[in-house]
């Protein structure tokens, strides 16, 4: 911006304070600095999702008779439609992956400890929103795999005591997965989730700007030496380079492994063999497979879903459960639990791919 314009704005909106703020923002340097990039990567991929999502909207038509056909039209007739759609799918998957990596890095560095509890909570909320994004977007092409994945996914809500049946009807827009479900998922995917996500993301980023970036546990004590890097321009330029690399990875995946469309859903045909949900739900899927039909007086399903709910609750409340971290101490127990969760996730995901 040239000086005259800057002055014009500055006279009216005091944008000098923004510049000052940007100049003061710094990034701590230490052995784990590399993990800071994953929040930024997730943010970048969200941008990719918004843009490609808007592009897809121009041709996509929700509805049992049009959804599959319109996606087919996008990937076969529209110039570069296959690319836009593949980028949307790949970027979505990488976004979930990078959000999960971001979360585990924050976990192992205990960056959620006082005073950043709410950054953690907003982050967990965004991960839930992301998974809902993935689940709802998966159905939109109305293909066989997605149809059955949605049947299973929504049906498992029934296992929740008291409100299960109501939740099921709310999600499906009726008793079964039909065009009504598609309409609901579409509205959720392109309107409600993006708005809610943008708001929570805004709060999350605001907290990070307000409090600055956390140093991992153990690095927090001042050793007299100031080791940090200005955010603008040093770290931001590095961010840009990483984003460029990530974007290229997305493009290469989209070009060399274009996302398949599959077979159109038929509500009156048996579930195909080898049906699987998206990889980030695979560990749940695989766990449910191993559960027996009944555990004590309860259906196995219900026990599994309730256990998952408890784990989710524990994750949200983590900053308050981990008392050691707020006293700058590292709980070995928690490390062990974290490694266990990571291993469980990895092993069950791999099992989900390997077994039949």
């Amino acid at each position, binding site marked *: 911006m040239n000086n005259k314009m800057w002055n014009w704005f500055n006279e009216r909106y005091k944008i000098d304070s923004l510049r000052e703020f940007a100049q003061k923002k710094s990034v701590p340097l230490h052995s784990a600095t590399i993990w800071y990039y994953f929040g930024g990567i997730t943010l970048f991929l969200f941008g990719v999702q918004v843009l490609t999502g808007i592009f897809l909207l121009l041709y996509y038509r929700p509805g049992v008779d049009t959804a599959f056909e319109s996606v087919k039209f996008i990937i076969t007739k529209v110039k570069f439609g296959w690319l836009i759609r593949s980028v949307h799918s790949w970027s979505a998957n990488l976004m979930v992956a990078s959000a999960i990596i971001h979360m585990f890095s924050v976990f192992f560095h205990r960056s959620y400890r006082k005073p950043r509890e709410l950054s953690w909570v907003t982050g967990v909320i965004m991960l839930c929103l992301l998974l809902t994004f993935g689940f709802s977007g998966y159905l939109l092409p109305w293909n066989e795999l997605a149809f*059955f994945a949605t049947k299973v996914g929504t049906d498992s809500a029934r296992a929740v005591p008291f409100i299960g049946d109501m939740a099921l009807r709310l999600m499906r827009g009726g008793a079964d997965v039909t065009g009504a479900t598609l309409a609901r998922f579409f509205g959720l995917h392109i309107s409600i989730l993006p708005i809610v996500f943008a708001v929570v993301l805004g709060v999350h980023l605001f907290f990070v700007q307000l409090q600055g970036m956390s140093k991992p546990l153990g690095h927090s004590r001042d050793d007299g030496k100031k080791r940090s890097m200005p955010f603008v321009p040093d770290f931001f330029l590095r961010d840009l380079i990483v984003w460029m690399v990530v974007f290229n990875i997305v493009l290469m995946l989209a070009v060399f492994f274009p996302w398949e469309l599959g077979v159109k859903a038929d509500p*009156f045909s048996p579930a195909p063999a080898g049906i699987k949900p998206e990889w980030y739900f695979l560990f749940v899927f695989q766990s449910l497979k191993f559960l027996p039909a009944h555990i004590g007086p309860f259906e196995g399903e219900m026990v599994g879903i309730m256990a998952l709910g408890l784990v989710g609750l524990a994750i949200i409340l983590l900053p308050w459960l981990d008392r050691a971290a707020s006293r700058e101490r590292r709980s070995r127990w928690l490390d062990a639990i974290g490694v266990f969760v990571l291993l469980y996730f990895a092993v069950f995901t791999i099992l989900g791919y390997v077994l039949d």
Partner: protein
Amino acid sequence: MPIEHTPNYSVSRRRFLDLLLGGTGLAALIGLFYPIFRYLTPPEQEEAVVSSVNLGPAKDFPLNSGKIFRFGNKPGIIIRGSDGKFRAYNATCTHLDCIVQYDAKVEGVWCACHNGRYDINGRNISGPPPRPLTPYAVKIQPGAEEILIASQDGAQG
């Protein structure tokens, strides 16, 4: 005669107004969200009640095979065992709502979603399904030799 003031109300004026305001606010919120909630809950659809369905000639069904058919808006599965006997069930897996299929190799019913298995009589025998499949009554129309499926309460056993 002077009016006596009694300042010893059990509820102060401020508290009373707070309650009134809060109560009104709460009522307004409920008034706002109740219609939204009801709007989001899908209405019960009138379903055409189907009590029986004709699947055509019995000779069209090979031995040891199964086929999905429409029973109203529900999927059904008809199985002809190697013994030649017909059996029909609601094809919805009792586990998580997937649609089952006939597995000719083991002469049983299989659900691909979570590897649930039922025997040819619809009993859940392995994997996660918690209950047997809901059976339908199968009747072979005399003369025409056509298969008629009826729901169990259609008095066919």
